[in-house]
């Protein structure tokens, strides 16, 4: 494997849908290392920004650049976990194996690695259970196992614990920390301030499709640069 696919550079990107501007001129660089939290209220454009970075959407104007020109290799070396994971109609194990097959992992290695990944997220004993009948928290952990098996350099997480109970949230945060410890760059969108603090090293604060502030996590929480970020935290704190 060649040099890192990072940094990811967003070059004055905008995105609009049906004439409505959702991302409005964002320029930033995502470097290897610190876990990046994309924070902002509902509708600030967090999900769309993640999809633009991950390549699921193309920007209306501007450019998304990675340190890797080959599209297939780029796709192979990043993963995304969605707010609502989509499980294929087959066993938990087969879901992980499928992702590895698409990524071009040799057939002989898939099952063993998939089982290791299921172990990592604590789903080994459910390996042969149909994925779609798992609980919400288990499905999200399976989505993380699917990503784990691919050893991505960058993992995008779009509100991975929205709608989950506290126990499931804790389990998922543990896995995200394991990704970080294994050297995967974490880019996570959330509006949960407690989670941002527990998992993040730096914050990109988004409002109405613009980056209002980018700061180390402690600095952001202690002295938010904008009145808007301060108000957002005040409003959100009861749920933190």
């Amino acid at each position, binding site marked *: 494997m060649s040099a890192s696919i990072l940094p990811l550079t967003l070059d004055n990107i905008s995105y609009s849908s049906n004439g409505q501007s959702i991302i409005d001129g964002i320029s930033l660089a995502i470097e290897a290392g610190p876990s990046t939290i994309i924070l902002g209220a509902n509708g600030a454009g967090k999900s769309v920004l993640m*999809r633009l970075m*991950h390549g*699921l959407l193309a920007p209306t104007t501007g450019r998304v650049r990675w340190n890797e020109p080959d599209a*297939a290799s780029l*796709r*192979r070396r990043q*993963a*995304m976990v*969605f707010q609502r*994971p*989509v499980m*294929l*109609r*087959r066993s938990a194990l087969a879901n992980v194996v*499928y*992702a590895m097959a*698409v*990524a071009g992992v040799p057939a002989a290695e898939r099952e063993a690695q998939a089982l290791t990944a299921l172990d990592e997220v604590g789903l080994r004993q459910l390996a042969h259970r*149909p*994925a*779609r*009948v798992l609980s919400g928290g288990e499905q999200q952990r399976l989505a993380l196992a*699917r990503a784990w098996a691919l050893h991505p350099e960058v993992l995008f997480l779009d509100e991975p614990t929205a709608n989950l109970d506290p126990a499931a949230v804790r389990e998922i945060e543990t896995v995200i920390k394991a990704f970080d410890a294994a050297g995967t760059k974490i880019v996570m969108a959330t509006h949960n301030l407690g989670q941002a603090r527990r998992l993040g090293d730096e914050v990109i604060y988004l409002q109405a499709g613009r980056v209002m502030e980018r700061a180390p996590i402690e600095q952001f929480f202690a002295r938010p640069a904008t009145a808007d970020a301060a108000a957002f935290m005040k409003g959100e704190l009861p749920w933190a």
Partner: protein
Amino acid sequence: MGAIAEGLRRVFELDSELWRIVLLSLEVSLSAVLLAALLGLPLAAALAVNRFPGRRGVVVTLNALMGLPPVVVGLLVYLLLSRAGPLGELGLLFTPGAMVVAQTILILPIIAALARQALEDAWREYDEQLRSLGARGMQAALTLLWDARFSLITAVLAGLGRAAAEVGAVMIVGGNIDGVTRVMTTAIALETSKGDLPLALGLGSVLIAIVLVLNSAAQLIKDAAQRRFG
């Protein structure tokens, strides 16, 4: 009711002749369903997954073709296969092969159009996830077909229902030849025109029973699988 009972008794007196008719009906219709599914399901998946100019036109046309009148299909296949026709050399006219061809053309749009709708609904859910994993084109379409397999049973059953029930196409290209191309529906039409209503009713009851059994079996498989796999 008495007429039906009398008809059923007469039907079972036909034994070997009846079973030949029943078997040929099943053979022709199931072959047509198999062929139409083999052609129609990949077509439906391609339409569900790909966006291209003119796609809407193709979808509308496919939906409209669900209403193809069997006699018109029969006529077209007749013209194709008749001795002077472009495919006349195959010598298929008035054989079960010709009936399979006609029924395949008749139900291909039904299976493809219904499957396209089911697959497109599933695709809305899968699109981003599969693209994120890096599955595209053919691979994504095959994944979608396999994952939506239970919903596709309904589309295939609709095709089977149409094939088993139609009389116009098989009558024209098969000719209702006793012992060669006579199937349930053409036999019923013949007995009715001869005035043997009890026998026609009896044959009709057997046809309905067969369709009912096939559909129930498919439905049971679908329900069990859906409970198991979610």
